């Protein structure tokens, strides 16, 4: 009769090198990882134009027309302006509430329309868009301060989004098709 083989003592897999293996993997992933969070200006494009449905009519006074040409020259409602004026002009336009007949009659209806040439430098365009968004952030923070918060970021942490301030001051930015230019 054959002798039944018995398992030897200590047949476990040695685990002393486990830490080393884990270390190696850790170092590999440490080296490979890039924790970079994308930052930028977020926008929502309008849906594609529907040939049966014409775009909604916007009254002349509720539209702030910003034009930018290939040289970086700016027209705000047909008047020459510089990049530094834009923020102030947008704030005045949005918070007008009907006071000035040439500016918006309510913040909800106010639309900032941005139009460029095809040759306009992207850098200039972003600089301008940055100013317009800065104007809205300024307005939101003003409103949040009136409600007793230090700024809009704190208000948003409490109220979330969408919230009453965003509803009262929606960021209506219309990006028109660029002109073919010269």
């Amino acid at each position, binding site marked *: 009769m054959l002798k039944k083989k018995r398992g030897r003592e200590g047949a476990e897999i040695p685990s002393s090198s486990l830490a080393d293996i884990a270390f190696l993997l850790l170092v590999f*992933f*440490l080296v490979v990882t890039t924790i970079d969070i994308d*930052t930028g200006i977020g926008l929502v494009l309008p849906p594609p134009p529907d040939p049966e449905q014409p775009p909604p009519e916007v009254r002349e006074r509720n539209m702030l027309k910003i034009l930018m040409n290939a040289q970086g020259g700016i027209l705000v409602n047909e008047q020459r302006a510089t990049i530094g004026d834009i923020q102030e002009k947008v704030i005045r336009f949005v918070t007008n509430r009907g006071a000035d007949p040439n500016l918006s009659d309510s913040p909800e209806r106010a639309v900032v329309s941005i139009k460029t040439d095809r040759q306009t430098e992207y850098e200039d365009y972003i600089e301008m868009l*940055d100013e317009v968004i800065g104007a809205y952030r300024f307005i939101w923070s003003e409103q949040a301060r009136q409600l007793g918060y230090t700024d809009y970021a704190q208000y948003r942490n409490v109220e979330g989004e969408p919230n009453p301030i965003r509803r009262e001051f929606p960021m209506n930015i219309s990006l028109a098709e660029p002109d073919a230019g010269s």
Partner: protein
Amino acid sequence: MSHFKKKQASTSQEIPTTSMPDIIFILLIFFMVVTVLREVELLVRQDLTSAENIERIEEKRLVSYIYVGPQMLAGGGFGDTRVQVDDALVPPDDFRGIQNVMRQRRTDEPRLIVSLRVDYESEMGIVSDIKQQLRLADALRINYSTRRAQGAEAF
């Protein structure tokens, strides 16, 4: 003069190392989860502009990138402005490929954000053409990727 007896802790002075593998494993798992292994090989220059009023995109998995910039040539120079999606350049006279790719991604992930990483020297015409394709693809959430200006805080 009496001698002060040197105080010695009765416990062992070695740091216990039995839990070290566990700690390392936790770190390992963290980095494995955070890592995005496959990065695109850039064929166009990416010198982004900076802006002040920017926001962070926290959900990185929702983001698809479109790269725009002067093509990097073999000799180290720069060519015309081209558009890159994934690993390929889009033909300059036909952007419909962007629409097809983004419509597919939009179907897979309805909350898709398209991040436009545009070099500062590009012109608005090409950016606008891409935007038109994105509108047709119904991928409406976009992001103009910019660096953070000095002193600015991401929203």
